[in-house]
């Protein structure tokens, strides 16, 4: 599949993860989120930006626990739990948020 974003065609895999992560931009993130039925609010962006920064440093998305702790630090203890993250990204913070952040899908026994 592919996304049409600002006149450019961005290739994605069967599940909508973009193939070339360098082509990501915030407009594209909005498009991917729309396809996932997610309306991006400030908290969504907080998570997406954290994922991208973490990926820049470690070449992988963070563990759910690491993400939860980061959210707790930036958005407060009442939001720093996996329940809240699943409210933001119902199909799972790791997979769905990664897709919107333009990162590869985490694989394995997860």
């Amino acid at each position, binding site marked *: 599949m592919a996304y049409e974003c600002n006149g450019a065609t961005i290739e994605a895999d069967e599940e909508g993860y973009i193939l070339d992560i360098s082509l990501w931009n915030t407009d594209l993130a909005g498009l991917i989120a729309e396809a996932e039925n997610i309306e991006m609010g400030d908290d969504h962006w907080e998570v997406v930006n954290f994922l991208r920064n973490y990926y820049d440093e470690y070449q992988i998305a963070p563990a*759910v626990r690491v993400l939860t702790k980061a959210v707790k630090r930036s958005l407060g203890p009442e939001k720093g739990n996996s329940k809240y993250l699943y409210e933001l990204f119902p199909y799972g913070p790791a997979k769905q948020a990664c897709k919107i952040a333009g990162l590869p899908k985490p694989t394995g026994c997860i």
Partner: protein
Amino acid sequence: MADYKVPCIDKPLDIPALARGSMAHSAPFPAAPEHQQALGFPGELVDDWHDKAIDKFAELLGKSRALQVYMDSCVKCGACTDKCQYFLGSGDPKNMPVARQDLMRKVYRRHFTWAGKIVPWLVDAEDLTEEVLDDWYSYFHQCSQCRRCSVFCPYGIDTAEISMAAREIMDHIGKGQKYCNEILGKVHKIGNNLGLPEKALANTLEDLEEDIEEETGLEVKLPLNVKGADILLVTPSADFFAEPHVDGLIGYAKVFHQAGVSWTISSYASEAANFAMFIGSYEQMKLVAARIRKAAEDLGVKRIIFGECGHAWRVAYAFLNTLAGPFDFLDPDYPVPQHICELTWDLIEKGALTLDKSANDHMTLTFHDSCNVARATRMGEEPGGQFEIPRAIIKACCNNFVDMDADTIRESTFCCGGGGGLLTDDLMETRINGASPRMQALKEVVDDHGVTHMAAICAICKSQFAKIMPIYGFEMDSIVSVHQLVSNAIILDGQTSGQTSEAE
């Protein structure tokens, strides 16, 4: 997620009405050429795929006496027909183990038996047509290789072996599955299924050390790449990443700490899983297993201990020595390899761990036997140790434990629905189907005995249930790691917070 029909679990386990072809549409995403080629398989379906497939089939029959016997010996008695969770969940008769086997057996008859070559129509022999190949791809990816059917087969025919052989043949003609093959590529390149690089692994482990110190006031270490450590822990990479797996990892660390042993994780062999078994590739299995041997040698450890991972324990317990042995450089006083549950239970029996069961009083537990552990391995010295030891650990850590229906546990356990390379979103419908008998058995003990949580010792089981249980109306966090219960209950020497402070 697309909407799937979720099997009803209100009624007791029953044989469903037949729904012919209801799952024929199910097929996993194909492996991309680069995933295939990284494992030495053709990138896409080769032109002479039919002849290549039959050649590979012949080669496998020559190598595996078992496969030959399984092809020849079925008498169509029907004992297996209602034993597969994918049949019970879907009603599709091609998910009956005998029918799944027959997809391969009919081609076997056509090419490898005298009658099938001359009078195929008389003996149910069939050519490997494109249609049959599509059936293989679909239905051999609706088998989790859990071996439940083989327990009930009077001849012991093992559908897992047949499904592995079918996948091996398909890989060799360029028809591989994305999930397994992409992941195997990551193991070769990075060292684990997740693709978790050393830097990220180190950061994750440090983060967990901080969490444990916050909880207990103690510096409990999760050492990485420590040369000269006594024990190499080989655990599924999901233990570094997912919930509730990571809580189990914290449990192992606390047990090692309290036992006062030196241990380490290796970034080179940061994966217990060996997906090569799922695709039936002996060559790939050897390559993945060799990483564990190399890490053990490089770090100079004396023992190898496996974390909570079902099929990894099968590969480790049953095949590790053949694949990567001999392990004569390890300490012969300990099992090679050892399961983390064996270590923990041994310490509990010796009275070396202080466990406060009341720390788990907010839960009533049941235990899901993981298929590969249950039917392909053992733990401890006694027969059935693989059933008794995990239960004994749970009971030592919890006051409330109830087993599920006897037909659904121990050697008769159902697969979680996501084993054997099926734990992928593109097979969600199959995963939902396969989980239904377990969900039914769980619902019974929830309704009748107030069970609140189910424990498991397999990364695939934990991830599958965390995803599937909400679909069946259970809470996502009602699946727990066995060593998570140990982690909750254990009181470490000198612990200043956690359970101790609550008790003060």
